């Protein structure tokens, strides 16, 4: 079907307008701001709350406190201890999810229109009056420690932990937000209360709501749910310093397949060249089968099931990272090929066709992200945290389109640093030795 090529050209022009996501900014009577997409076709609402700071706000010596505290939010609130609380939530058929990362703590709620007030009353207690009963602390702590023990023997986790430590040292980014077995063992109920105070404050709150709820209803909801949170929480840590030079660090671990992560300095989200870098990565190692890394390492040589790279502009440092896994006797070759592709792109850049294909993919794939209320609520919060304008969705593809071949190849030369690429390899890799610590 050679005819596909012409067909595609025609279809490009017929590409539909982006999914119409009409975002409204809602400010509650009490002054809390949220972004809202109303969709009354299904009688439920997805509400996303995100608090900037995340596990990086752990107090000194209390590593893992915020992660454990987040895990305890569903262990009872107000008058309800853990089990009656869980039964109440079940009876309402609502779901409240909690997650902590190095940059934020998120609360993802989903509730039916028919019992919205009751669900939100329960969520309010959860945020404002969590119980932190000692028996719940002990129970959840045991689960966290069980996970930490497993992580010590998991090659992916070992690679991530080694990378973090080498790259960021004593900065919060340098250690796992879950803490260590000894730090988590030492945590007390007071630490949970302090962690709760550190995280949940209005000056670091971002809200997205999608579904069967009006502006007025959302305004009332915001005040009821969030107005009684304290104005401020723990101070944010300063930027992280990226300490890694290029080279290879091998961590000996007896397993048949070596797991490697790689990294170099990245680019900030608000850099003028961010979009050029984003397109660059799509061609080099972005998530599709067509990337250069996938073509060279997997499709041509069969060295791996998956190889990828991604820009990681976090709040306190920007890096450019990737990963690959290959059998112990093949990982050295995989790493060699990745290094060569990195250098080739830095030196020669990409072709006009590669740029065009990447743009078509990125602009076409963008509307596919908006598939479901919870997903959209998450995007709304992400946009606010990145300080993007409320009309960003309608302008984003134009920013991708505006990237020229000169831009992308200039950025390739400036950003890609083959000499500065560090590989952390966990396994028994043949023909690889540590060249950098």
């Amino acid at each position: 079907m050679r005819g596909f090529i012409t067909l595609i050209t025609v279809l490009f022009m017929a590409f539909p307008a982006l999914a119409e996501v009409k975002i409204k900014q809602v400010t509650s009577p009490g002054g809390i701001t949220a972004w809202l997409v109303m969709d009354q076709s299904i009688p439920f609402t997805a509400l996303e709350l995100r608090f900037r700071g995340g596990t990086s706000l752990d107090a000194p010596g209390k590593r893992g406190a915020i992660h454990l505290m987040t895990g305890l939010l569903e262990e009872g609130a107000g008058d309800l201890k853990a089990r009656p609380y869980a039964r109440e939530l079940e009876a309402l058929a609502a779901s409240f999810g909690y997650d902590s990362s190095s940059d934020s703590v998120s609360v993802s709620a989903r509730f039916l229109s028919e019992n919205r007030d009751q669900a939100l009353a329960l969520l309010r207690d959860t945020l404002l009056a969590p119980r932190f009963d000692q028996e719940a602390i002990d129970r959840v702590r045991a689960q966290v420690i069980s996970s930490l023990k497993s992580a010590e023997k998991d090659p992916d986790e070992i690679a991530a932990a080694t990378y973090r430590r080498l790259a960021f040292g004593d900065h919060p980014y340098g250690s796992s937000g879950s803490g260590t077995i000894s730090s988590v063992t030492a945590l007390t109920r007071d630490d949970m209360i302090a962690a709760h105070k550190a995280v949940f404050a209005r000056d670091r709150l971002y809200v997205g709501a999608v579904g069967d709820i009006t502006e007025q209803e959302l305004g009332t909801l915001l005040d009821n749910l969030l107005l009684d949170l304290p104005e401020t929480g723990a101070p944010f840590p300063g930027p992280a310093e990226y300490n890694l030079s290029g080279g290879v660090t091998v961590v000996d671990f007896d397993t048949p397949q070596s797991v490697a992560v790689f990294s170099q300095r990245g680019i900030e989200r608000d850099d003028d060249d961010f979009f050029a870098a984003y397109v660059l990565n799509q061609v080099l190692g972005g998530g599709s089968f067509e990337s250069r890394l996938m073509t060279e390492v997997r499709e041509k040589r069969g060295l791996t099931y998956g190889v990828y790279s991604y820009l990681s502009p976090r709040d306190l440092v920007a890096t450019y990272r990737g990963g690959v896994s290959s059998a112990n006797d093949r990982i050295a070759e995989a790493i060699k090929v990745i290094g060569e592709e990195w250098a080739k792109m830095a030196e020669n850049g990409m072709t006009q066709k590669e740029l065009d294909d990447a743009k078509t993919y990125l602009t076409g794939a963008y509307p596919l992200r908006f598939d479901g209320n919870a997903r959209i609520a998450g995007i709304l919060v992400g946009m606010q945290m990145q300080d993007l304008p409320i009309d960003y969705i309608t302008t984003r593809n134009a920013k991708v389109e505006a990237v020229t071949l000169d831009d992308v190849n200039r950025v390739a030369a400036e950003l890609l640093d083959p000499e500065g690429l560090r590989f952390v390899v966990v396994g028994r890799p043949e023909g690889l030795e540590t060249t950098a610590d």
Partner: protein
Amino acid sequence: MIRALTILGVMLATALPVFAQSNKELVTSFKLENGMQVIVVEDHRAPVLQHMIWYRNGSADEPHGVSGVAHLLEHLMFKATDNMESGELSATVAANGGRDNAFTSYDYTAYFQRVAADRLELMMRMESDRMVNLRLTPENIQTERDVVLEERNSRVENNPRALFGEQMNAIQYYNHTYGRPVIGWRREVEELSLENVLAFYRTYYAPNNATLVVSGDVDPEQVRALAEQYYGVIPANPDLRERARPQEPPQTAARRMTFKDARVAQPYINRSYLAPERNTGDQEQAAALYLLAEILGGGTTSYLAEQLQFENQTAVYTGAFYSGQSLDPTTFDMVIVPAEGVTLEQAETAMDDAVAGFIKAGVDPEQLDRIKMQLRASQIYARDNVDGIANRYGRALSTGLTIKDVQDWPDILQAVTGEQIIAAARDVLIPETSVTGWMMRQEEVSQ
């Protein structure tokens, strides 16, 4: 509570939750003359669609000695055809801003693309092309076999939980091909040939062995016209036989295994029982088992959690799992991760005592009501994810169920009584059909 303990990732992933059913009016279905079933699930909120084809063949349909051939073929379906170059299908989907992928299971192999709503014809043209026009070379086989072996390394060899699961499964099934891993045994994958792959392809890749499922911003009449144009012209395979895999003999011996690996940090126990699956027109027992898994081990409020994590701290985690969507008999699984200082033996005794106590005490009617309320609500939430609804139909029609069975399922679940759940527990949770696996740390070895 932190639910997804790292060590249980694999098990949780295989225990497919049964989502709520769709509202019937969203779903249209029809059959092409060559026997191909078509399902359309409409959602016009965004101009996107998912185009998906489910073949009614999976790893359990593989001949003896060539385990992994269904999955290797799935990988090779992205290579050249008479009309497309190797990789062209994915590249075309990507160049149209879409995403594509595929997956293989015991009972089915499925391929899908998510794209803008006006790209349906292009997807059908390419997907129908590779149904019959695949052109493979020996080099394709060699390279892709290496990729699959690395996939096996990532998913299984590097993961003691997966190795443990493979052994459990092999012991659970004496005779049925469910006892073999979907990805295949390493030795057999290494030996797979072009001939093995093509024989499988020619047998199973035909319109009368496939279900087409299109979901999203589509018009059923348009789907029908395009499906007739692209899939309707492919002749049915007249030699396709009814699926008949070797069945289990009566299982009359409780089996036990211990698995040791130096990479195990957290020991645990998995217990599996051979269990009936959902069958067409006969889903009541499966519905009772589904609710039994929820009540016994479906979360914080479940019986095992109450008894073993709250009343006393015997376990850090407990769970029960049942997936009824299976062509042949499936399993009912329970897991217990003992707390620090509790031996595996003590944990197993505590789990068995708890189950016996549950059967004696009967089902708490309030708990059953809450679960049924959640199931009703999940029908509302499910409408936010029509691809999920589409997948449910695709999976059901690949495992011997009909559209009517899928649509009857929510009401069947609502009608299950506490007595039926206890009866199902008495029928299924019996030692004779069970496997008990102990996942253990390797003792220190001096070198």
